């Protein structure tokens, strides 16, 4: 598959699991799609470690270091998997993986070159000493425990925005 085909497959599968995928090509476009999301949020956690995270223009009054109380978490995740529409959140490099879990809205940036075509391609890279936590995140938090009625946003985020950059 070509890179564009892999990206299209990923975006198609992310839509199927009720994530909201967007595609951007530069920092200007990144901030344009983030603008409305950040404007309507109450407080934002962003690790500001990677170049793409640093490029995010955060409203200073909403910026918080406490992800447990933030309403939005904006971060770059380490990879994605096209086959399942999943994001790969990893503790590698000191990332708090739980920061994308506690806020009601997770905004995940994924670099287009870090999208794997399928599960095998990703898991064969891990070896025998992976980071402490690797979580595949596939759509928002959900439950169907009452009469199998789908309810979004149980313990984890009710909204998952995915920005392919």
């Amino acid at each position, binding site marked *: 598959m070509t890179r564009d085909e892999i990206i299209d497959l990923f975006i198609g599968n992310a839509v199927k699991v009720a994530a909201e995928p967007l595609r951007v090509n530069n920092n200007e476009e990144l901030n344009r799609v983030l603008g409305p999301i950040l404007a309507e949020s109450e407080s934002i956690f962003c690790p500001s470690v990677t170049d793409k995270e640093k490029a995010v223009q955060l409203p200073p009054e909403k910026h918080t270091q406490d992800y447990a109380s933030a309403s939005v978490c904006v971060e770059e995740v380490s990879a994605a998997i096209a086959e399942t529409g*999943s994001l790969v959140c990893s503790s590698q490099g000191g990332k708090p993986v739980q920061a994308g879990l506690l806020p009601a809205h997770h905004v995940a940036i994924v670099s287009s070159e870090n999208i794997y075509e399928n599960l095998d391609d990703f898991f064969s890279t891990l070896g025998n000493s992976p980071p402490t*936590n690797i979580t595949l995140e596939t759509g928002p938090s959900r439950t169907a425990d009452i009469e199998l009625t789908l309810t979004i946003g149980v313990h984890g985020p009710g909204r998952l925005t995915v920005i392919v950059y």
Partner: protein
Amino acid sequence: MSTSTQGIPFRTNAAEALRNATLRGAMRNATDTFTIKRADALSGVPVEEWREQASAMRLHVLDNLSDYVDRFEKNAARAGARVHRAKDSQEARERIGSILKDHGIGSVVKSKSMVSEEIHLNNYLETQGVRVVETDLGEYIIQIAGEGPSHIIVPAIHKDRRQVGKLFAEKLGCEYSDDPAVLTRIAKKILREEFLSAKAGISGANFAVADSGSIVLFTNEGNGRMCTTLPPLHIAVLSIEKMIPSLADLPKFIRLLPRSATGQILTSYMSVITGTRKPGESTGAEEMHIVLVDNGRSEIVNGEYREMLKCIRCGACLNACPVYRMVGGHAYGTTYPGPMGIVLTTLLDGMEKANPLLEATTLCGACEDVCPVKVPLPQLLRRLRERRVEEGLTPKLEQTGMAGFGKIVKSPFLFHLGQTAAHFLWPVATKIGPKVALDRLPRPVGKIFGRRVS
């Protein structure tokens, strides 16, 4: 036929379940929905090839189980976890209790784990003064209702929304609502406080990876992630057969488990947790204990029922089983219901206690058709049923009846006589006999097959 006098009173339970219209409606809704979703999720994929591969991989692990358990123990320790082996339920419970006691912990958050139900962990911890908070919504519902799970994937499936609404209003003091979204929000709010203040979290594991010492958890709500990343102490409890060789083998099971369980391509979250937080990391428990529960499995794996240990607990056989679909999980009176539950319970708890469950099957084979790892459930059930007869555990009336029937069919004369008698007595029987029962029987065919065969 009389009911069995010993063991689990399945017939009484089943009769009671069948009289419960709410339960039957809930079970029909759930099992139909799951059956359709599973079929959708597996259409257009090479499912037979996947099942073959997954089954072969599980068999390979069982062939070398003790090696894989040793390897897992070594690698989990290398990653910073402390591994404990428990030969039975009591040892497992006590070990977990003592870990919590050593840390002076009086309250834990817990994510859904069937093996923790198998070892009756919650009851034990409560007696030790530890408050256990189940955080999966379904588990939370049955915990505050004081019940056990009725399905291994959706534990509160036997309750409808009005029952959950009433339960919440009564036990949590909130306003009555029968809207699942409102009820979910109420539980979320209460449980978020618990997560943020918890000093310890208990989880199960769907798989354990021998080469990396990782445990793998599939969840939809996010509670499993919270239990394993927020508290400083994490205790994972799992049974020894959950092993897979390496992380590269995981995709085989990722493709089958959620599709078979809920009809999802993948659950919202799937976490691979490898030991404790390493230097420079900001995620992971500071202390991790892994309790490996044997509970008879080391023996089962060497016997004729070993293939039962291939099971990955997806629940597809429950949803497909005509008996389970009618009576629900509680009628079985066991931790694990449905076809896999009958076999596993008989192996874990013994024939004496579990044998009445062997009546809870039609041997139709639907369970085997849907099993993602090709556990030959009908064969295992048949073999256990044979053993039940051999051990003289079937009801006395059944034993006498079958012995008499055996005598008759072995003798061409008696067989012919019986058929002729049935033909002539049928009109009389339908007039004086129990109509409901007789209506279900095929009518005696009389002359066509009544020819004497010598």
